């Protein structure tokens, strides 16, 4: 364990295991595949969008538009399935093309204008939510046989737990995200930009191209998350998933990725998502705690992790500075 950058990841996994153990002691039923399956299903859309957010944050950026893009995706799918005779798969492909292009356009603006990602993606957030609103202001139910099939698809695990299709999609998204971030040249460029844009440029990374690709990837994942969310809720609603971008950022941080960029693991984000889901499940099991405790617990976890990372970073710097 020489790499101090792994410590936050280990801390995340340890906290998840300890939290699960505490839950198990109080409610033995927590350790069943049913609960585990629901944990994956209920947080699938959050996990997928967090994969894209992890890559963005690894590059030192931020993407505030994702919550709106998920809402837009749901409305887009619902309206297109209602008004046209297109097959859902065609609609999905169209949607992913739109959201990927949308992300790429934001990346291009960030690079060409030299403006902070925060404010560019803020405009993107307004735009996506606004367009969703212009498509419809009502909740539109999705009524489609193929769609119903996707909703009902699951694999029965031992112990009668259901691993649903959208849960599987989330796990695949994490595998792809891990591969993209840690095994490809693009991923190396992302880490380089996160470490420092000027250094990366001197190293020969193509900053412009990489920035566009980073936000395109995030847009793609947000679109995919929108599809999963539409399958999960069976409808499209322009006011859905308000504030999801902030929850996604929180999961990334709890997962051990540095918000300053340049250090972190996609795998850690999975545990960030699961920890958050666990808090919610515990509150549901308990029954006396109110749902707003979730927000407070997440805030406290977030604070803990950031302070932990700060401390570790200081330790690392001191160690490398020592002769």
């Amino acid at each position: 364990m020489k790499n101090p950058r792994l410590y936050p990841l280990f801390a995340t996994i340890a906290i998840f295991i300890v939290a699960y153990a505490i839950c198990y002691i109080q409610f033995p039923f927590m350790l069943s595949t049913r609960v585990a399956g629901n944990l994956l299903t209920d947080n699938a859309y959050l996990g997928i969008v967090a994969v894209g957010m992890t890559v963005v944050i690894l590059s030192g950026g931020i993407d505030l538009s994702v919550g709106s893009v998920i809402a837009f995706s749901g409305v887009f799918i619902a309206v297109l399935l209602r008004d046209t005779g297109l097959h859902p798969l065609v609609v999905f492909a169209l949607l992913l093309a739109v959201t990927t292009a949308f992300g790429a356009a934001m990346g291009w603006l960030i690079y060409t204008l030299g403006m902070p990602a925060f404010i560019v993606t803020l405009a993107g957030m307004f735009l996506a939510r606004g367009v969703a609103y212009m498509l419809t202001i009502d909740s539109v139910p999705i009524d489609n046989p193929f769609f119903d099939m996707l909703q009902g698809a699951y694999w029965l695990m031992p112990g009668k737990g259901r691993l649903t299709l959208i849960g599987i999609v989330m796990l695949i998204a994490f595998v792809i995200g891990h591969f993209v971030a840690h095994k490809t040249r693009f991923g190396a460029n992302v880490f380089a930009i996160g470490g420092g844009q000027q250094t990366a440029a001197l190293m020969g990374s193509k900053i412009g191209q990489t920035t566009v690709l980073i936000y395109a990837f995030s847009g793609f994942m947000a679109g995919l998350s929108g599809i999963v969310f539409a399958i999960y809720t069976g409808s499209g609603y322009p006011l859905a998933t308000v504030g999801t971008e902030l929850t996604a950022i929180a999961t990334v941080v709890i997962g051990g990725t540095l918000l300053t960029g340049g250090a972190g693991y996609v795998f850690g984000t999975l545990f960030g998502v699961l920890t958050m889901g666990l808090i919610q499940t515990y509150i549901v099991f308990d029954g006396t705690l109110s749902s707003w405790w979730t927000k407070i617990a997440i805030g406290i976890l977030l604070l803990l992790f950031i302070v932990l990372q700060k401390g570790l970073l200081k330790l690392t710097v001191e160690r490398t500075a020592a002769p």
Partner: protein
Amino acid sequence: MPGGLKRVIPQLVTLVFLVALVSLFFPTFLQVEYSGGRFVGPVIDVLKRGAPVALLAIGMTLVVATRGIDLSVGTVIAISGAVGAATIASGYGLVPALVTAIAAGLAAGLFNGILVAFIGIQPIVATLILMISGRGIAQLITEGRILTFNLPSFAFLGSGQVLGIPVPVWIWVLTAAFVILLVRRTALGLLIESIGVNRRASALAGVNARVLLIAVYMASGFCAALAGIIITADIRGADANNAGLWLELDAVLATVIGGNSLLGGRFSISAAVIGAMIIQTIDTGILLAGFPSEYNLVIKAVLVVIILVLQSPNIAGDLKFLKQNLFAGRAKPEARQEAGK
């Protein structure tokens, strides 16, 4: 004064242009009538409804000038509103309610300030913590309900009038005037700018950067508390879920429209406040002109992009080059490449 006026000319031009545009669709936009001891009209409405964002923009401008950002202001509105309403619901009067609400805002600012100044967390992350957990805290105070109350003196702050002008307008105008005097008639504004330009250098030069940073975040918390009081008083109830929702983004937008760079440094509170009025004119204008309010967000997004393009350091280089080339005729072809970089 000409110097100060010159700074806000782009914002004033934008505002005048928008007012003209709205008047085109809604001809009586500029009409103000005096009836029943108060002024009524769309303009007064804009001034009143823009109060929360204008107040937030004052604090946000100070924070942005130090190269920070305060994402928690919307949540602080909910917390201070909930605290104020809870104080009244427990049987206390106007003064205790105001004191506790403002104390809650200052405490939130202190928390943010300590995270930024002492622990050294990036402002966007530090304030994100309170932004997420704060609504939970507000819901804890109101127990998840909309906490209503009946105290005429408190409600007066949201819907009353003084000299025919709504009280919220007085609150934001006076706050803005006070803060502008405070930062421009003392060296305070200069010191805040120096932190934004280079925190380490200003600390080496003897500026107490930590105390100033905390003070700036507390000022932002204070302004958010005032906005929370106005919103709570106006609807005579504290809504932990929806009070101040998305207002942090409007406040940042107002600050940016005011020409304040998110990279810190020079700032203008008057321009930011005009920025808040620009946003409110758009909101009200879209409503009055009979457009569906769905267009609101798209129009805002387009506006942000236009402002970004105008503010961009890269584009600014190109514009400078163009100006040199057209008016001075001195720039050589090589200068184009340098300007374009």
